[in-house]
């Protein structure tokens, strides 16, 4: 009896082994499992004989029955793994990772905005506060209060677009110096970014462009402070190795006045790239980047500050110039055509 019992169990294993390959789906496999291992399955049926066995045979029969149960289980499991693998294979067969993604529309900021934001971030980081003001200005704020009386030759430096005799489009962001000092007591540390206008249009000038003006007024501010501030500023903007050069110049609203050159961003100040002369700095190794100076006492007088009590500095730079240098844009006119192919390069 024991022998036939054991043979019967071995037969189950063999049968299952033979048939499991025919199970081609998880459903088939489940049916096979029920047939062999189910409550009313073949193993259960065979186990029925165990009850009638004598105590001497029971341990061996029981042991065998367990072995067969495990064997059947692993046979079915391995088939399940095969089927799972096949199913995964099927599921991935249509998957193509190289298909284009569903991209939301990409937006972008104008390069002038990018440059302006970067400049403002550096300067606000240094402690300056941003102020804004009108673009249509009166003559007094734009010129007179800035030490440029009517019929002063310095007015030639800025060809002006007029609305009427006394009203014009601001030629620089410097009127914000005046407006700020009129409304605040020193100390003052502000920057004024914005659009400015000149009656000038050629390859290197557009009638509208962007400037950022800086003003710092307090007791005992010196030209050394101006140098320190601008050196820190241009190094943050153009890199720590940037060299700075101050050249004496003239602006009616600062005294002394200087123009600031930085070592050329293209050739690093060498004046040439390899054997080719550098076109950005025209072989000089320097590019002009901003104008600055110590606020003229006449400006303090115009706004009601005491020139004996306070000193300070002002500076201004062109944003287009910075954007051209930073992004390598050669043609000023590109800025205002708003060609999408230009704009998308700044995404």
């Amino acid at each position, binding site marked *: 009896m024991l022998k036939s019992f054991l043979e019967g169990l071995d037969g189950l294993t063999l049968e299952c082994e033979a048939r499991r390959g025919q199970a081609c789906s998880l459903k088939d496999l489940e049916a096979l499992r029920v047939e062999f291992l189910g409550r009313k399955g073949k193993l259960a049926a065979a186990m029925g004989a165990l009850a009638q066995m004598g105590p001497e045979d029971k341990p061996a029969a029981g042991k065998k029955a367990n072995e067969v149960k495990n064997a059947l289980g692993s046979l079915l499991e391995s088939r399940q793994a095969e089927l799972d693998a096949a199913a995964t294979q099927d599921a991935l067969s249509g998957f193509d990772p190289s298909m*284009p993604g*569903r*991209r*939301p*529309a990409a*937006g*972008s*900021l*104008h390069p002038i*905005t990018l440059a302006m934001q970067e400049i*403002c971030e550096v300067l606000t980081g240094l402690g300056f506060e*941003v*102020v*804004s003001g*009108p*673009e249509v200005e*009166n003559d007094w704020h734009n010129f007179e209060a800035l030490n440029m009386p*009517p*019929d002063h*030759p310095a007015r030639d*430096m800025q060809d002006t*677009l*007029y*609305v*009427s005799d006394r*009203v014009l*489009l601001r030629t620089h962001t410097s009127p914000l110096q005046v407006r700020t000092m009129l409304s605040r007591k020193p*100390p003052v540390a502000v920057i004024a970014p914005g659009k400015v206008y000149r*009656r000038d*249009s050629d390859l290197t000038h*557009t*009638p*509208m462009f962007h400037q950022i003006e800086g003003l710092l007024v*307090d007791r005992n*501010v*010196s*030209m*050394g*402070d101006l*140098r*320190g*501030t601008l050196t820190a500023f241009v190094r943050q903007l153009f890199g720590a190795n940037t060299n700075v*050069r*101050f*050249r*004496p*110049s*003239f602006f*009616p609203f600062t*005294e*002394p*006045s200087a123009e600031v050159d930085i070592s050329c961003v293209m050739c690093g100040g060498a004046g040439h790239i390899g054997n080719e002369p550098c076109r950005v700095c025209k072989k000089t190794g320097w590019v002009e980047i901003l104008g600055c100076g110590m606020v*003229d*006492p006449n400006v303090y007088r115009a706004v009601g500050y005491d020139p004996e009590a306070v000193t300070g500095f002002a500076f201004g730079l062109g944003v287009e110039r910075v954007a051209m240098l930073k992004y390598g844009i050669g043609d000023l006119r590109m800025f*205002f*055509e*708003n*060609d*999408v*192919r230009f704009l998308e390069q700044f995404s």
Partner: protein
Amino acid sequence: MLISLQWLREFVPYTGTVQALADRLTMQGLEVEAILDPFESISAIVVGRVLECDAHPDSDHLHVCSVDVGAGEALQIVCGAPNVAKGQLVPVARIGAVMPDGMQIKKGKLRGVASHGMICSERELGLSEDHSGIMVLPDSLTPGVLLVDALGLEREVLEVSITPNRADCLSVLGIAREAALGFGLPLSMPKLNLIEDVSAGHAAEAVRLEIADPELCPVYRARVLTGASIKPSPAWMRHRLLAVGQRPINNIVDVTNYILMELGQPLHSFDRGLLKGGVIRVAPATPDMKGGMAITTLDGQERKLLASDLLIWDAERPVALAGVMGGANSSISDASTEVVLECAIFRPGTIRKTARRLALPSEASYRFERGVDQVGSVFALERAAQLMAETSGARVMAGVAVAEPKPWVDREQIFRIAKCNALLGLELSPEFCRVTLTGLGCHVDDSDPVCWRVASPPHRLDLEREVDLFEECGRVHGLDRIPAVLPKISKSLDSAQTSDTVFGFLQALKGWAAGAGLREAINYSFVGADDLDRLNLPEEGRIRIANPLSEDQNTLRTEIAPGLLNNVRHNLSQGNGSLRLFEIAKAFREDAASDTGACENSRLGILVHGPRHAQEWPWEQGEADYLDVKGLVENLLTHLRLGPAGFVLDPGHPYLEPCVRVELAGKNGVALIGRIGRVQPKIADAYHARKDVWLADLDADLLRELSRAVKPAFVSLPKFPPVRRDVTIICPADLRAEQVEAAIRELKPKNLESLVLVAVYAPEDKADAKPERNLTFRLTYRHADRTLVDKEVDKEHGKVLAGLPQKLPVRI
């Protein structure tokens, strides 16, 4: 300003290179923009000697010459000039040389005879207008030498950019002073050797001077010359004038120009034979009541005059526009022999006004506007008279006719060295400051060591305040040598609200727009009036530019749209069809209440056109429409924690159709945020847009104001589950979704948490019925404190189902 190095060296013994001089001047505040070679275009011309000169066998005017040019065999050159002759030294352009007019000399044949070069006339070399024959050179020259070297022509000219404050540097003398200062060299003036001829008479008797207003003309001096013969100036003077960009005219006029360039003093020479009454009067123009008064200037133009123009008169009539240009009625001509040489100072503002109004800037007016050295003018007059006598053979009358109603007065400033160092951030020694100021020509009185008294020289009109002297000390020391320090300022850290700026808000708005897939455009603030007319925008309130560069830039934009529409035109012409643009900029309107007469309002413009997605697959294709631009606006309002907004049809808009007002309810009633709409196809057509152009024009200032008032506030998350019910309503196609929504809300179903439109279906129109559409709304019910049971939701939802058809012409 062009400065000849050769000329400069007559004033200062500078022996260094032109580049070192340029660098030094630049760092002293006189920016050298370029170093030029004025005769570069004739630098290939050599001196040749005509060895043989025979008549051309086949021509009655050509000559066949054999010319020794120093090296190799003599060249055979065919020459047509009547004055060519054996033995002459002549300028020769060899094969390959390029002439000033761009022509290259090639080997050629003239009537069968080979010619290996060209013998040049002065005109061909750009040296004068003389083309009567070839230029014949002095016999002392050597064949083969470069012409520029043989004639000693200037090869190094500095182009210096002079800032408006440095009128003193508008001359060789001025730049020489700076070079002397920069290199510690002595300055020497040309020796005067003016010979007066008493027998010719006395200047003061020959011309009587009258000055109407000392403010307009503090000094007028005149020398009188007699028996001049007008002819070309000597070559050295002509060549020097050419080198600095001045066209030689004749020996009298050239001397005035020479002195102008050399000493910075503008002079004018009158033909005394044409002056009436022996009088020179300086007085303003006297236009009659009708404004009629004019003078013909020596360029032949008639100039209308105003009472603000200063004139030089003779006994009867105006003879010059003072300081600007001489009159045609009294100018030096080839027949002149009697000369009155004027050397005066005029009020800068007056000269500037006239020169600008008449658009007549001259070398003279440029200097008068900026200020001329009243003391130095004496020397200029003497030197000019001497040169004129030398070049024209004229005799100089004794003495000078002078009227100086307002003599020069020295200006004195205090100078506090401590303040100077504090301002510059330097520790300059008293010795350095004294040497510097003295070197500039100042007189320094340092008897009080703390507060010096400094008199500035008459040629430095810009040194009128203490701070101007500080600048000089800094400039001479080198601004570039000031140690850089970071300012320690007493600025308060209490900067509450400083991050909340208009600029910051607009930048954040740009950040939103870029994140929303829009590309930023920046357009000029001005457009053409045509651009506004095309959009049917009102004329009223526009701000016009009085002096626009062009007609398409003559008006400030009153709306954001014109610039963006121009961008559509540009991009479509470039084949960029899918556009999603934004711009944040000001719109300008007249506003009498503003101190500038303008109301400036920041606008956010959004424009979409063409395919909704620039990318095709896998997006579903479609053209951008109202819902795209409205969605952007809704997204923005959500971003700013504003809304929900009302979207209200706004018929009759000048250029949008349909046009929808975007409104927000606020404390002060309904605020108009802006408008959304489609550019009328006829208008869009003008921008070459065949597809719909959708625009949103929003008030960025208002958005800032409203959003600043809103702070995020937390609401507890719901603890109990919602019950959702959908209802599909069949309604006439012209019934708006918001009407259905409002009707549902009016039925006040209890516990209704939200109501959203989830589906729209427009069944095909049946011929006999009015068009309809199906709107499916999802109603979400929820109770804050317990779970709702189906029965109570059914009851509330039933109210909606039953109530809607009674309120609206709809079926459920």
